[in-house]
């Protein structure tokens, strides 16, 4: 198992290099002169060429890529063209909101999706209505759901601030928005997995031993469905981030997702480059951590 993990860690290195190359090339393919974007239209030609020299954009692509890799390896993800601050500082400032949004949504989706999935697997009567509900939940675009929630809860009922509010209460609607589709997917997965588990021999044996229902489903049932659920949750972080980009835009939350979109629109390419690389590295790390969690869940794998 340790061998497997080591191999996985070594394996991510070429992926990270490929990733950096892809992002680097995409950013260089962007139209427009980065020096001009940085200096503004009033800059003289002399200032511009000086700036190009300093930014290194007049060197060959290979040299630029190597310089990019070198600074990334030193923990320098570039400087924003707009604010002049390091990308990493800008991102760190906005990270808490995105993390809160994603984690609360994941928590909500986990409770709702897994709970209802198990309930439906135990009580077959619930399957059809809940399945129908999950189809709708899966099909609502996050940005539209967000707008509907704003329309109903903020504008009609006035319960929550419509957008850009401060404090915890302004997170309720965004979390609700982001929870829906994840909960629906999680529900379906849990239902299928748990239906297979309830039919398993060890469940019948455990029941025959006379243990309580809670122990039966909590210990024997749930633990055996956790592995596929963990895999899903690990992979879901990517989708969750995509959803967070849209949700933050709808609710005008100052998180990483909306920052990325504004940087994209303002062509602040060091930010996009640094942010994408950083975000993807985090996802690769999350997938590794999920593999580690398998060990904690399933003792059979520890051997």
């Amino acid at each position: 198992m340790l061998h497997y993990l080591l191999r996985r860690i070594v394996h991510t290195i070429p992926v990270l290099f490929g990733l950096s190359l892809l992002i680097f090339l995409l950013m260089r393919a962007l139209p427009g002169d980065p020096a001009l974007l940085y200096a503004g239209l009033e800059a003289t030609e002399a200032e511009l060429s000086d700036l190009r020299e300093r930014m290194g954009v007049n060197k060959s692509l290979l040299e630029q890529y190597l310089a990019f890799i070198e600074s990334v390896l030193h923990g320098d993800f570039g400087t924003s063209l707009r604010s002049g601050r390091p990308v990493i500082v800008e991102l760190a400032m906005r990270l808490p909101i995105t993390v809160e949004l994603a984690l609360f949504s994941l928590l909500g989706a986990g409770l709702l999706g897994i709970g209802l999935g198990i309930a439906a697997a135990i009580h077959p009567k619930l399957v059809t209505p809940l399945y129908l509900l999950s189809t709708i939940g899966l099909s609502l675009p996050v940005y539209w759901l967000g707008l509907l929630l704003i329309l109903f809860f903020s504008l009609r009922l006035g319960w929550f601030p419509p957008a850009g509010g401060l404090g915890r209460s302004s997170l309720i609607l965004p979390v609700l928005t982001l929870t829906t589709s994840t909960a629906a997917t999680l529900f379906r997965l849990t239902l299928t997995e748990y239906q297979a588990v309830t039919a398993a021999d060890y469940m019948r044996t455990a029941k025959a031993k006379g243990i309580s229902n809670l122990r039966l489903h909590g210990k024997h049932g749930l633990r055996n469905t956790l592995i596929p659920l963990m895999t899903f949750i690990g992979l879901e972080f990517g989708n969750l981030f995509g959803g967070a980009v849209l949700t933050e835009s709808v609710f005008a939350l100052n998180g990483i997702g909306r920052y990325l979109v504004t940087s994209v629109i303002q062509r602040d390419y060091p930010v996009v480059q640094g942010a994408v690389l950083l975000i993807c590295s985090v996802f690769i790390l999350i997938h590794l951590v999920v593999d580690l969690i398998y060990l904690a869940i399933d003792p059979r794998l520890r051997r």
Partner: protein
Amino acid sequence: MTKRNRQTFIGLLLLGTMVTVALLGPVLYRISPFEQDLRRSLEGPSPDHPLGTDELGRDLLSRIIHGLGITLLISFSGVFLGGAAGSLLGLTAGYFGGWWDHFATGCTEVLMAIPGFLLALVIAITLKSSPLNLSLAVAIFTLPGFARILRAKALELREQEYVIAAGALGARRRQILRWHLLPNSLPLLYTLFVQRLSSALLTASGLSFLGLGPQPPLPELGSMLNTGREYLWVAPHLCILPGIAITLCIIGFNLLGNGLQRTKANGN
């Protein structure tokens, strides 16, 4: 009718309706989606404008019909392009093996390391905003999924006796790929195609909701939501109606995709 057949049927019915509206709508409902009338902006339903008008006084029904066509076309062509390229990459990688397999798998893994929506976002900004480029972004978003699954399929088919026999009879590798691997992957390809349509549509209209899709005055459902949200309070129908159109399409794709998936799983 069994339950899964009913699901497939309702899905097909929904999609059939949406596609018919997108194809026949512009022929039967002849009001232009571009014609402005500022005196009549943000109106509710009326005999002249059955679904009301938008912020520039354009007919909303007409814009939804045309927008539906554009959105569906972007999703279909995106999944088709990405699916074709991904399948080619996956099938050849799995069948030929060797350095090509290493290269193709490496590319797929790099693309998969980027969260799908982020990948499409980055591609969308590199290209100029237009319907064609949006479908290219969707294509690249779709590509790695197809490549990975079709590579596994090729590895499985490569070991089948009829493929080995064809090779022993002197068939070229290209012929085997064309006449044995591809036809036998088609059922899988159809299912994948339908299943990926929903995420493609969500991504495409999501990107144009962020302003990275077709530019105004072209109607696209996502970008209609984007302009409509400024008028959420005064004219909520500008947001509600295009959203319903998107959601109905996605429900159709999801039902059809599920139905096909289950049919495949049951092996009939």
